[in-house]
């Protein structure tokens, strides 16, 4: 066997290691030719991601995160802890931010998802992306897509009047203060410790002071 057969790209290696990524469309076609002893169930899932409709056939174990990264190849959304503790996988589903790692793709049939790729482009950054660049709101950058999706949603949640633990008067409309933004961003961990710059970036976008 030629040695080239064993040359994989880094991404292919990572994909083959993603056991929960489950069955891709190609794998199902192969399975049709030689069915395994007990066929794994698959389900049709329609997702609109960053405005584009997609039809996927998925093992129900596939998380929304793995559907985005492994099936739609939108690798901007990151897998950190995969247990809802770090926030690196934060995406916006039907206008609300969630941890994509703690949601099955089948739960989202018919839903509209926005990932970091849908917020802005290198030529036309979303104001929050531009503010992160200006304020140096990252170091290694791994948590940044989740931080930015979360930050955009936090400002929307404040505008919608969603309360927080930092709020003194529960009935009053929340304001985009530094204390509010720090509390509301507590589900996004940054090992590099860019927190103070992230709050400054958010304050820039909110037109407030951190």
């Amino acid at each position: 066997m030629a040695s080239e057969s064993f040359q994989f790209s880094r991404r292919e290696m990572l994909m083959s290691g993603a056991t929960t990524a489950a069955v891709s469309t190609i794998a199902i076609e192969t399975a049709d030719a030689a069915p395994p002893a007990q066929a794994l169930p698959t389900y049709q899932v329609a997702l609109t991601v960053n405005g584009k409709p997609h039809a996927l056939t998925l093992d129900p174990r596939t998380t929304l995160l793995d559907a985005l990264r492994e099936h739609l190849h939108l690798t901007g959304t990151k897998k950190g802890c995969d247990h809802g503790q770090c926030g690196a996988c934060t995406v916006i589903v039907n206008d609300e931010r969630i941890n994509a790692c703690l949601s099955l793709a089948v739960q989202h049939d018919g839903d509209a998802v926005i990932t970091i790729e849908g917020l802005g482009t290198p030529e036309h950054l979303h104001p929050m992306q531009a503010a992160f660049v200006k304020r140096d709101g990252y170091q290694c950058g791994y948590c940044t897509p989740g931080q930015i999706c979360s930050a955009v949603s936090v400002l929307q949640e404040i505008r919608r009047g969603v309360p927080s633990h930092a709020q003194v008067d529960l009935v009053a409309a929340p304001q985009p203060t530094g204390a509010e933004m720090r509390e509301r961003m507590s589900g996004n961990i940054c090992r590099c410790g860019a927190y103070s710059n992230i709050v400054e970036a958010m304050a820039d976008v909110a037109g407030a002071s951190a």
Partner: protein
Amino acid sequence: MRSFTYERARTPADAARIVASHPGARFLAGGTNLLDLMKLEIETPTHLVDVQDLKLDRIEPTDAGGLRIGAFVSNTALASDERVRRDYGVLSRAIVAGASGQLRNKATTAGNLLQRTRCPYFYDTNQPCNKRKPGSGCAAIGGYSRQLAVIGSSDACIATYPGDMAVAMRVLDATVETVRADGKTRSIPIGSFHTLPGTTPERDNVLDHGELITAVTLPALVGGTQVYRKVRDRASYAFALVSVAAIVQRDGSGRAAFGGVAHRPWRVEAAEAAMPRGAVEMAKAVFADARPTDDNAFKIPLATRTLAAVIAEVKP
């Protein structure tokens, strides 16, 4: 994660019937706790019944002057509801004291009630745990027990109920409404919803397999000032070491429930008569039967001081 099949139920009774007829089936609401446990193979359902299409996502007034909260109402929607923020502030406060914004957007009212303990030995499948594997023993007793129960525990289990929302519901005298596979409904007072571990720590609550929570109802207003105070190792996004949900009247009387101390939200109604005499007197009665470990004995003075802080905060 083990393989499973998935379906969406159409009605609450339909969902109950499907789960009741599959021994390995579970309801799936937000999934934020269940999926985490499935990835660790602590939960290994063979069939998931998604309850998102059951139209249990509304908050409506009741004839009795209270509120009926649909089981699928998200934690964010419940904490944000204008009526809840105005009239049941302790509930709104408790919810926003827990988890993160992302989790609260996905987690549901029923799912929050049904979340499982965060005892580190329950989560570590290499350790014995009577809750995860009945009869295997309890590694927490004699182990790292700083977070765990100080009261209501047993020789089989010292796990705590980890949530905040239910502690507020306990002080509000909420009722859990359910439907079973045969279509029959029942109303369970929140105080008898979560169980103590005893000799069956694998049970967290009184629900039968296939019994679906449809709503949580809150009674009419009771007046007074409502407070939720949570003490934890960091200022946000951490489980309670101790929490207090309280409703205090102008004359100093009131009620209080404690989180982070037991296998269920801990409230001793008989101790509440002591509230006007202060936190020390009341806490002495609340924790009279406490059996803390060396690691978590600090929770009793901490709970006493947290209650004192709550009473001081409310005083005019």
